[in-house]
């Protein structure tokens, strides 16, 4: 390349840098798009599906509709749900017949450290007793602590009347 060509290229290169700086200059006077995280939080997280939760039942508003079928635990790819059943003997009004055996959900142990939020439990639940929560900032220091009993959580929520 001769001298003339090099000068032309240098000028073109400088011009391209000036154009880029112009873009930066324009954006320098636009409003800030980031937030200072711990002091402010973003609001676009509302549609995020957090961990799995038990929903208040449509038939049983003070508890859950769960029929203890165990479909959620069977379909889970990582085995993070454990359905603990409480078997009760209900007195039959007819004293001649045997007492009826009923199953109740005692606890639904949920291990969040294994959950990949795929939604297989939510989709396969025959009574729509499970859903995704909006509790998205759940974090613990120890892996052992990132477990919870979903039944206890539901009762806590119903008692206080707000989302935990």
């Amino acid at each position, binding site marked *: 390349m001769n001298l003339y060509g090099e000068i032309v290229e240098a000028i073109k*290169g400088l011009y391209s840098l000036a154009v880029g700086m112009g*873009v*930066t200059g324009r954006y320098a006077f636009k409003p800030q*798009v980031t937030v200072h995280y711990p002091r402010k939080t973003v609001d676009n997280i509302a549609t*995020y*599906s957090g961990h799995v939760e038990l929903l208040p039942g449509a038939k049983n508003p003070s508890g859950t509709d769960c029929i203890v079928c165990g479909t959620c635990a069977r379909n889970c790819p990582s085995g993070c749900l454990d359905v603990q059943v409480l078997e009760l003997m209900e007195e039959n009004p007819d004293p001649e017949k045997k007492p009826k055996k009923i199953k109740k959900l005692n606890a639904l142990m949920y291990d969040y450290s294994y959950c*990949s*939020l*795929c939604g297989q439990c939510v989709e396969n639940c025959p009574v729509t007793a499970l859903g995704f929560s909006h509790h998205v900032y759940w974090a613990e220091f120890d892996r052992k602590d990132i477990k919870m009993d979903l039944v206890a959580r539901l009762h806590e929520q119903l008692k206080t009347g707000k989302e935990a």
Partner: protein
Amino acid sequence: MTKETLCGDFYTNCFEADQEQEGRLIINMGPQHPSTHGVLRVIVEMEGEYITRAEPVIGYLHRMHEKMGEIKTYHQYMPNMGRVDYLHALAWNWGYIGSVEKLCQIEVPRRAEFIRVITCEMNRICSHLVWWGAYLLDLGAFTPIMYSFDDREMAVDLLQMVTGSRLTYCYYRFGGVRTDVTDAFIEGTRDFCKLMKRRLPMYKDLVTDNYILRKRCEEIGVLPLEMARRYGATGPVLRGSGQKYDVRRSEPYSVYPELDFEIPVFSECDAMSRYRVRVAEMEQSVRIIEQALDMLPQGDFMAPKAPKRIKPPKGDVYFAVEGGRGKIGVYIISDGSTTPYRLKLRSPSYSNLSLFAELARGTLLADAVSILGSLDLVIPEIDR
């Protein structure tokens, strides 16, 4: 230097024993190196500033996805697909779901096909934006990643609206998609397309025309077409070498034949050419999304007869889709039970990485970083 005095690990020792010469320096790029985007390790033999040999060492992120496919049922394997390639997770979702649908002959409603096209192309834009920012970060430009993440944030918010997650999506289902798209999503996506049309020329002014970037990319990492073919490179790497090959056109699937879009091809074969392909692909993706939104029909988003439990007939099936990095192929052999007999994932990054050893030979170390970036590697996808 005798073997006993070497303090490297197995790979380094083998690499050094292979060719011992005075005045050569062996360095490790990675596994924890800011320019490798993950735990990729490249052992490099240098003579001065020039690379005489380079060898990628992989396996630091191996998670046995293929083995997991053999022990999990077809439904249970779905969340794995979002983790293979976290940047273009929906393409992997599609590759797996599509292959099972082909095996079981499940009909997909038309609306679901369009939703898949829209979300997959959105995800492709996200993937290319992350690459764009990270590649320029490798080359020493910090600002562009801020702009690209600003745009990506909007796309990710929109995808979060329908999929419920922000990165590792698990959205497609056998016979449709998990949730229907809302009006807010459709409106938001139109706005996003308008935004991208404004932003892409800005990207050109800010970065593509930049003299310093051009010097770092032009005539660096020249990959002849014959070599790209030999290594089985696909996606933007192959299209950057002048081959017009795109799975969406060459092995059409879903509703892509009805959509009007071009396959960007650049035949300079260098890093800049691969860069231009990806930027042009973002434009084309915006075009596809706009068309698909206009054509989005009413109807079911999930086939009413979609089986709850998958038990496919005996046989094998191969299904390929176009991912952000190239051809994603899923090969399933079914023995008629509820789990696959064998599941093979063909990942584009693996083929694209394999040509790095030959491509980097004889280049400067700083250029090797540029070449590695221009291949757009996603390490989890290489190891699977």
